[in-house]
């Protein structure tokens, strides 16, 4: 007779945690017996997790005897099978039913876990934790970074082989109770990883002229992820910051250089090339020309607007739009003559 619901069958000695405390507890699982970083998960870890799940969570007892699971993913190394099946082999070395075996599909596909899909590209590392450090003199932190885990889908076929329907029923009951909410969780290296029941099929051999036995296949999908510890990164954080400012002590503003340079005075060379002895120039600005020196010039005359001004002048005042004409007498007619002046804008 069932007990009334008010009566508790088990009294929890350790109270369950909720909310923030529960999240902290989960984090402690991840970091247990190790560093502050999560433990890496590979294919073998997930396979081991699935085997543990079958052995512990789907444990099936019929008539007081546990249906033994083959606690191994059988691979190409044939001899390994014996290490698991010798306990229930017959005299011919063949495993005797009932037993449960787990077969992994060798192909591991990119995962369908929605929370991990294509959100951080190019294996970029992201911040995971800051861990305080103390080197005896200064406090600091180490910054722990990890890349986003890679989601994977692994398909397992868990098969029960037996001779009795009641063994099938018991295992079926265990599976359906465990997966009554469609999925259950394995606990691998501190991480909860979901397992989804995909399909149930029957492979029983019930032919008339053959040995009859039941085989039922339960197809599970593990929605796991890969975390490679080699990709984890620990780098020292900034422990001390020094800020420097550079200030000018001048009290007056310095004159800013004009750019491009625009001087009031500039050299103006009047060149008489080849046999040329006369040059006219229209000045579009008001300027004073000061004679500096001459080269190959015996004498020169200056005309402004065709009005004679003088010979060998040392200073010439020119107004805007004046046409100034220079005529020169050379010392040596075979060479060029040059009058070097300085023009000062007025």
């Amino acid at each position, binding site marked *: 007779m069932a007990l009334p619901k008010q009566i508790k069958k088990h009294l929890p000695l350790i109270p369950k945690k909720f909310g923030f405390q529960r999240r902290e507890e989960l984090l402690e699982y991840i970091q247990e017996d190790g560093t502050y970083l999560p433990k890496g998960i590979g294919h073998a870890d997930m*396979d081991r997790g699935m085997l543990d799940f079958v052995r512990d969570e789907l444990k099936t007892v019929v008539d007081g005897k546990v249906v033994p699971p083959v*606690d*191994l993913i059988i691979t190409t190394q*044939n001899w390994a099978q*014996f290490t698991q099946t010798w306990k229930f082999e017959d005299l011919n070395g063949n495993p005797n039913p009932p037993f449960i075996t787990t077969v992994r599909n060798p192909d591991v596909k990119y995962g369908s876990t929605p929370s991990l899909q294509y959100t951080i590209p190019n294996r970029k590392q992201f911040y995971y934790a800051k861990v305080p450090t103390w080197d005896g003199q200064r406090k600091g932190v180490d910054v722990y970074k990890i890349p986003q885990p890679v989601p994977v889908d692994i398909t397992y076929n868990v098969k029960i082989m037996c001779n009795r329907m009641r063994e099938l029923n018991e295992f079926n009951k265990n599976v359906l109770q465990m997966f009554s909410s469609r999925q259950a969780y394995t606990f691998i290296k501190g991480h909860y990883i979901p397992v989804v029941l995909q399909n149930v099929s029957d492979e029983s051999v019930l032919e008339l002229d053959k040995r009859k036995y039941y085989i039922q296949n339960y197809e599970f999908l593990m929605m796991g992820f890969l975390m490679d510890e080699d990709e984890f990164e620990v780098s020292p954080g900034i422990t001390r910051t020094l800020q420097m400012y550079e200030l000018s002590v001048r009290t007056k503003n310095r004159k800013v250089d004009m750019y491009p340079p625009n001087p009031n005075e500039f050299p103006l060379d009047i060149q008489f090339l080849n046999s040329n002895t006369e040059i006219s120039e229209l000045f579009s600005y008001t300027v004073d020309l000061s004679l500096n020196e001459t080269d190959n010039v015996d004498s020169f005359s200056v005309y402004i607007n065709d009005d004679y001004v003088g010979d060998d002048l040392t200073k010439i005042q020119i107004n805007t739009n004046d046409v100034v004409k220079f005529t020169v007498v050379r010392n040596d007619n075979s060479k060029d003559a040059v009058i070097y002046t300085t023009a000062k804008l007025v």
Partner: protein
Amino acid sequence: MSQRKVPITRLNKFFSEEDFDLEISMGQEWLNGDMNFTLVLYAVDQQRTIKDDVYGEVSSNGIQFKAPVEFRAMVRIEEPQNAFLGSSRIVQNEPGNLIFSVYENELSKMSIDIKLGDYIGYWINPSEVKYYSVVNAAQPNYDNKHTYGGYKSFYFTYTATPVSTDEFNGI
């Protein structure tokens, strides 16, 4: 195994244990003396082999073996098959399986038990040995073919598949 021993009395009107032993000894003389096909058994030492707890695998050269034992058997090697390696488009001449039959007497005389996954070496020429892995451990052997006219079984027939040198290359 049952402790009760029941003598085999079938065919005893014209065939007895002595006849059976005589026939077997003549057959063994022919196989061992005339044919002299020699194989080497590399039995996996399950106790000393350190394997992982997920796949039961060991790394390359990680399997521990008992001392190799030579034994005689009737050997048949099947023809190789020229085929693609899976769907890889790599052509490979897949060597044929090794099928060998051993007298029960031979196994008990050499104190050996050939099990699933054990390795077999077979010298195909003086300088080259090929290795095979047992995939059919020949149990049970009480079918008509393996008995002497239905009297008692007297030999085992094993099937072994060729292995690559990456898996096993002698010890």
